């Protein structure tokens, strides 16, 4: 790694000040993405600002209508949380499929969404559930947050504090993992709320995207067969040795069906 200075602020405000005063500084959350990049010398921040000391950013709070997850909450904590497991089990499934157990003990939701890797899992869940990203400056709607490959709507120095997930009527997540990296080749998150259905796809394109045609079909009839025959144009999809665009297009349909089936199973299980 290149050398850097290390800071461990004791408050969010202090973290913001550090970012403001060092323009090549980077935030360090779980480190599961940043540290490997630094080890490969793919990035050269002058300063790392470790958010690990900010207890306020850790934790899961539950109300009747939503679950709020602190930005520094680990994937393991999300997947093991009783409220998440009962109220949004698809989110527990999603978090439980990220990386491996040791990665899940360190990786955080804040780190994941801020990095906005096109193959990360959380973007699909955040967008499909219509979550709200709460920063130290404002609130950003999920649909506005992911703006491109490794790009978000965050302003320089802006820090994510929490992600608030409305509790859906039913939700499901189905992921086809890259056999080597276990990142999402295609991950489809489907959520049904009183307001309709949202379908978000990660892994397949440069950034997470929704499929309006599937959403309206599912709103009319929330069953796996509703998405049969609805396809995404291959031209916009990622192509790599593990998965061609055509394969991804096919998998989107398969995973969408499976996500809907899963959503129905868990909601029927509850009823």
């Amino acid at each position: 790694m290149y050398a850097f200075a290390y800071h461990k602020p004791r408050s969010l405000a202090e973290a913001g000040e550090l970012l403001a005063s060092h323009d090549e500084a980077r935030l360090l959350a779980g480190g599961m993405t940043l540290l490997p990049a630094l080890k490969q010398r793919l990035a050269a921040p002058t300063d790392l600002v470790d958010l690990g000391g900010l207890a306020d950013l850790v934790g899961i709070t539950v109300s009747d209508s939503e679950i709020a997850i602190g930005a520094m909450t680990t994937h393991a904590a999300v997947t093991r949380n009783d409220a998440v497991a009962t109220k949004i089990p698809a989110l527990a499934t999603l978090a439980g499929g990220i990386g491996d157990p040791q990665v899940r003990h360190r990786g955080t939701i804040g780190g994941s969404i801020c990095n906005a890797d096109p193959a990360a899992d959380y973007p699909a869940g955040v967008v499909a559930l219509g979550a709200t990203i709460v920063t130290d400056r404002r609130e950003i709607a999920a649909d506005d947050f992911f703006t491109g490959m490794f790009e978000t709507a965050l302003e320089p120095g802006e820090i994510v504090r929490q992600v608030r997930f409305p509790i859906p009527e039913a939700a499901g997540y189905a992921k086809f993992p890259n056999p080597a990296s276990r990142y999402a080749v295609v991950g489809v998150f489907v959520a049904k709320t009183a307001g309709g259905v949202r379908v978000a796809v990660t892994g397949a394109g440069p950034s997470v995207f929704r499929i309006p045609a599937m959403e309206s079909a599912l709103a009319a009839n929330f069953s796996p067969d509703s998405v049969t025959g609805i396809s995404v144009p291959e031209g916009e999809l990622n192509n790599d040795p593990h998965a061609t665009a055509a394969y991804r297009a096919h998998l989107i349909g398969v995973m969408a069906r499976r996500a809907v089936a899963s959503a129905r199973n868990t909601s029927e299980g509850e009823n």
Partner: protein
Amino acid sequence: MGLMAQPVRRIEDGRFITGRGRYVDDVKMEGAAVGYLLRSPYSHARIRAIDVEAAREAPGVIGIITGADLEAAGVGHLGSAFPASALKNRDGSNRFDGDRALLTTDVVRYVGEPVVFIVATSQNAAKDAGELVVVDYEELPALASIDEAIADGAPLVWPEAPGNIALDWEQGDEAATEAAFATAAHVTSLELVNNRIVVNSMEPRGSAGRYDPATDSYELYATTQGSHPVSDMVARRVLRIPSDKLRVVTPDVGGGFGLKMSTFAEYPLVLIASKQFGVPVKWMSERTEAFLSDSHGRDLKSKAELAFDRDGRIVAYRIKTDFNLGAYGLGFGPGIQSVIPMFVVGGVYKLPVVYNHCRAVFTNTVPVEAYRGAGRPEAAYLLERLMDMASREMGIPQDELRLRNFIPNDELPYHTINGVTIDSGDFPRNLRDCLVNADWAGYPARKAESAGKGLLRGIGLAYYMEKTVGGPTAVEIKFTPNGRVEVGVGTSSHGQGHETAFAQIVADKLGIPMDIIDLNQSDSLRAPYGGGTGGSRSLWNSGNGILKAADNVIAKGAVVAAALLGADVADVSFADGAFQARGSNRYLPILDVAAAARESGKLEGALSESLPDGIDAAGTHEGRGDTFPNGCHICELEIDPETGVVKILAYNVVDDFGFVINPLIVAGQVHGGIAQGIGQALMENCLYEPGSAQLLSGSFMDYTMPRADDLPSFGFAYNEILCTTNPLGIKGCGEAGTVGAAPAVMNAVLDALWEKGVRHVDMPMTPLRVWEALRAAA
């Protein structure tokens, strides 16, 4: 109860399970600096200039070595494992291996080729300095694959190798083969790819070297599969010093699989640097570096054909193979797909005539060397894919076709047409046992059950034969002054459990406890000379050698015991660890006899003078290391047609390893070999970008290593058909799992996809490839 044929728990585990293993990276040399290699980012380029001046001045840099420095100092180049005469072109001319300096001076021929060696106080300092080195490269056209290299008008990796052919080789009877094919009742023909593998032992390679000016000698710790071959290459060829001026020590090694048999540039480089800069130097490969700097495995394309008579009996076999050497053909490379597969070309079948024509091809890729099985898995893959397809084409059931072609038991020992003699076996028994264990008969019902769930089930069979490869080296048994027994061997355990298996043999033979036995291996100055461990030879070589050495120990012991008992040597016998004289009930434990032989005064003068080493003795099991492990693999799997994912449901193997000394260790070897075969068949693929020859699968993020959730548990069973050509009766098991697995898995995949119209499958059958095959057939 004796120790032989017992699942004795491994002695060496104690240090490994508590984190007290000592691998090269754990070796601490006082004041050691870090060695770091700057490697070529281009796959083919001329080096116009190398400027290290700025790098030399960088903080923490102790020194820098370039290829030009080494040439000026007269440092030798790396050499080949096969003398020219052993492997010639079919027109009688010499093959061309390429010429390999430790650091190239003029042309880089693959991405990752070492160019500059930087020695610094830390890894980071070395990397920082590396970024200051300026190499003026002039890019040249590159060849990423066999197809690109053999295309008309392709540029040359080596001007000395026209058409990029390093070796054009044949074996067999071309005319007789052609004649047999011309009149055959049926011909089965397949074009198959054997995909490139990155070995990826969990411990990367490394070396730590120290020069001692007081004695003008060197000490090298390295990740090897045998210290002596590395010492030979480094001392004699590269440094051009007497062998006794170099001590190569191989400590604990985290897996080899053939990779660590070779001598790599980084091993002599740390020694040269240590001498030049006056500090010990350690180099450890990082993983992404390993992808570029280790040797790779496999990578060949074949057209293979079997000719049959009307009864489904093989009448001839014809093979044409092009295999990828990579950029250099040194080490074992040229032999692995030529001579070695021919040892087992017909497997356990009666094969009247064969013709094999193969060509070694240069490309701008990492050199290809031995990978577990080294030629035998490749041979078994062709043969068993052909047998499977022939069974389908001729409508003869899979098991029946094998049974018809097996060498009958009453024809063993059997002299094959390619010059080896298969001494023993009971092929039908292994096959039938495996069919039972796999419930082959019940398969149709299970297939229907899968179909009911929308899944495609397949079952595949492969009968393999292995030939172990190796030559004899000495074993020494020494009784130490502190009451322990040291067994010196020429082999080099790196996970195979020799400390335990060999101790079992010694303890059993000499009647002493296992826990006083120490293994002395793989130290070029302090352990017996040997070829190390590879080719599944170690039990044959050292195991039988222990018997010889032990016999010599007992013979010497009897002389001493006779003197101590006041008896005639002829009346002294040895049993249960002690010597006894006929007609007396006095007995002398062997450890006491050993101690007495050391102490003067206990024995009469002439006797003690004639035994300067007490009853220590050496022995060598002579002969060729030919043993023929063989067995049946059956793989059953299920394919999800929606995604192409292949899930192995059951895997059964019945092997013949002759006499099994430690069934626990043998089973472990088979499990690991099967896992590698499955990995190659379904997951692993080392990919180079066409045209640029840039490595695309350069880390575990892109190269799929089998994980626990990719694999099933294995049903392993064995029949002991004793080998008749060595006293222990053993057949070497180290690589056998890899030899049989890939064809069994691929036959099962084809079976699953057959009903959907798929007729051709190549490794690896990743989910993408399965899906594409189904789509193409639909």
